[in-house]
């Protein structure tokens, strides 16, 4: 079946089985490989995208559910002139990524959290940032979220 949706501001038509996950349409049909496959059961968050501004784990979201909705992937959060999003800049400044595989999902989760809360507290970060990072970049993720929202890196003395 064909499903009409918007991805990174562009109208697209996806040819996919209705029950197939959005992740594979994004990666294999649209060729946007910044969104990653990690677990297939919405446990790790490597596949996090925004659907109408809300974070969603695309490996477990059937494409039929995104018809008519607006999807943003990691490739779509830069400014129109190509400048990095404040969160991306903070990620570089804090030297967050190690292997980097989970970081698209982490950044998408962080952008959604910041859009929702403005200046997230440590508790809000704990609650929202449930994506898994095996390299253990969590202290720097916390630090980068604070920095991106103009907050001093209060607690994470050790990081960077």
């Amino acid at each position: 079946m064909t499903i009409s949706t918007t991805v990174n501001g562009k109208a697209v038509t996806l040819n996919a089985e209705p029950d197939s996950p959005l992740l594979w349409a994004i990666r294999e049909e649209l060729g946007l490989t910044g969104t990653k496959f990690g677990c297939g059961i919405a446990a790790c968050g490597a596949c996090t995208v925004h659907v109408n501004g809300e974070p969603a784990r695309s490996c477990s979201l059937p494409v039929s559910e995104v018809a008519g909705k607006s999807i943003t992937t990691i490739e779509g959060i830069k400014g129109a002139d190509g400048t990095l999003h404040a969160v991306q800049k903070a990620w570089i400044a804090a030297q967050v990524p190690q292997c980097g595989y989970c970081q698209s999902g982490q950044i998408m989760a962080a952008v959604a959290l910041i859009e929702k809360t403005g200046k997230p507290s440590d508790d809000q970060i704990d609650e929202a940032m449930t994506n898994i990072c095996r390299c253990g970049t969590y202290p720097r993720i916390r630090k980068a979220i604070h920095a991106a929202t103009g907050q001093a890196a209060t607690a994470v003395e050790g990081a960077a």
Partner: protein
Amino acid sequence: MADNPTLEMEQPAPAKRKGVKRRAFLIGGVAIVGAGLFGISIMDSNAVKTAAKLTAGKGEHSFATWLKIAEDNVITIYSPHTDIGQGSNTGLAQMLAEELDANWDLVKLVSAPAESAFANVGLGRGFLGEMTGQPGIINGVPQSFLSFIARQMNLQITGGSSALRFTGQVTFQKVGAATRLALIETAAKRLGVPAAELTTQDSHVIHAKSSRSLPYGKLAAEAATLSLNNEPKLKDPKNYRLMRQSVPRLDIPAKVDGTAQYGMDFSVPDMRVATIMAAPARGGKLTSVDEAPALAVKGVEKVIKLDDAVAVVAKGYWAAISGLRAMTPQFTDGGNGGISTASIFKAYDDLIAKGDPAGEAGEGDVKAAMGPKPVEAKYQVPFLHHAMMEPFALTAHYKDGKLDIWGGMQDPLASKMMAVDVSGLDSDKVTFHPMLIGGSFGRRLPMYMEIVSQVTKLAMQLPYPVKLIWSREEEIAQGAYRPQSAAVLKANVTANKRIAAFSNDYAQTESAEAETTFIYNLPAVARRNYEHKSNQITGAWRSVNSTQQGFYNESFMDELAHAAGVDPVEFRRNHLKADSRHLRVLDECARLANWKAPLPEGVGRGVAIVESFKTIVAHVIEASVKEDGMPKVHKITTVVDAGSIVNPDAAKAQIEGGTIMGLSSAIGEAVTLEKGAVQQSNFSDYPLLKLADAPLVHDIHFINSGAYMGGIGEPGVPPAAPALANALFAATGKRVRNLPILTQAKA
């Protein structure tokens, strides 16, 4: 590792190998380092000329394989290592650029296309045989150092700092320094002044007296024709401008905007996607499978039966995995149906009770000194999975008699060798194209890359390129695990509160002696290993055997301190050599952690100190127990002596991450077996630590002792579990002897 790589190195690899043997892969692993040595030792050889042809374009001039200088002053450095996120390639570039006095803004780092050049050296001539059979070519590298490299090979592959320690210190710094000398020599001739009057800075040779300077790019063509000095003098560290600086990592920008391309992301036109299921009980074979339900799934094109697995080939991953799940393949258990976690622990207990070890090390007469009533404790730890975030994914294409493979593996050479063996093709018909790796921690090592064999088998019978992706379920069930292990520790603590005898009887797949360092200075110590193999593959898991040995020894030292009624830091101090690096690390850690400061009710403080990969790390952890019985880590103080540090911030990141991986495994991770098969399937039942449970405060300090450079990717792991367990004992009075803590919290 049971195999002794040092011994392996004394035998040249056979020119033609049949079958995939671990020995060959060990050699392959060493050979990457060997290739690094090769570069410096044959600065004027044909190999260097070949590399120059491969890398240097018009207006570019190649030096000693690893470096080229362009006429516009852009400097390109070729790294033979795969950066898996530890920042090792940035570190290597820093080391070369430092000695070269390069302008960092114009330095580019590229993966060595010389992978193929190395492969030619290696596969064409039996590369290690080349090195060991003709040691004369390895100028200036003592045999003992080669043996050292071989012994540390696990680190070479899994940890980036070995890249710096070996390739960096042995080769890249020397290449930078020797190239700088050649540039100075060229400039001296051109300016008509003595070389001694010239200095270098920011990719320029400078003659201060006459206020003249020449950019490297204008000297490179002529300098590239000179013979390079094989043993150039290196800089005094006090003059460093790039090394020991937190230079931003070169790989990071592409990892924040989705442009970084991992093996999982590769695609070519007409490519199909396959996924696979191997026998759940390792060692089993495929007996039958009804393909019809898979072929009925839209997009599925083919079902391929392998000896021990079944694969589904489809237009995309979702169709492939849906097809695979629609089938009910039948496998034998390979005679392993009786193997379970409990049966393995039972076998360990029996072996240790029988007291006939496979190997023994230590000092003094432990039997005589143990006394009638030793303190005794038994510990158990489970198999652990690497659980790297990128599941295995390789693409292969067999066309016109040639096989190409794309993906992220730790040893592209050995991957290629495996594909050569499996395909039966000549080595010059097989190319492995290395890509970024989404985490490894020891998982993507040559000895357990069955996916290379699988994708080769699929590609050889398909008319189109195929990307084989392992599902997370396959990944968890078919791992190369940190061994399940058990240990009985005993010690005699005498009336003067000193240890008179200490023994550690541990059982697992193989001896850990070559990899773990026992740091305490005791009159009598025995470390005895008992070997028992299951049907599982045990592999190198970040810090390898130091994880479980660190947990055993440092938990037991804590038990002994309490038995003696001595403060745990003080007790350790009393058993470390005066003026030792270990004592300094411990003292600094205790001081910085305010070890004696009072803590809130319910919070305990624990210490552990472990040396692994020549680096000493102490953690002090403050922790409590949550209502659900799970630990809460409040604060960690860490002191690290790795000799010296190339990039402090990148090193800090490795210690942060290693500590978190150690905590994660201690708290929640276990791979268990029933009927020979792994019971876990995904992150739902193999839980990794999440951000909310990571320490809010992690205070990390480095001691630059100037000792020989140690590793940094792995040594943060081993002291984490015992420091946590010791903190929980301090908080609750309950001793954690079995990991993970989750299992006991739920029991």
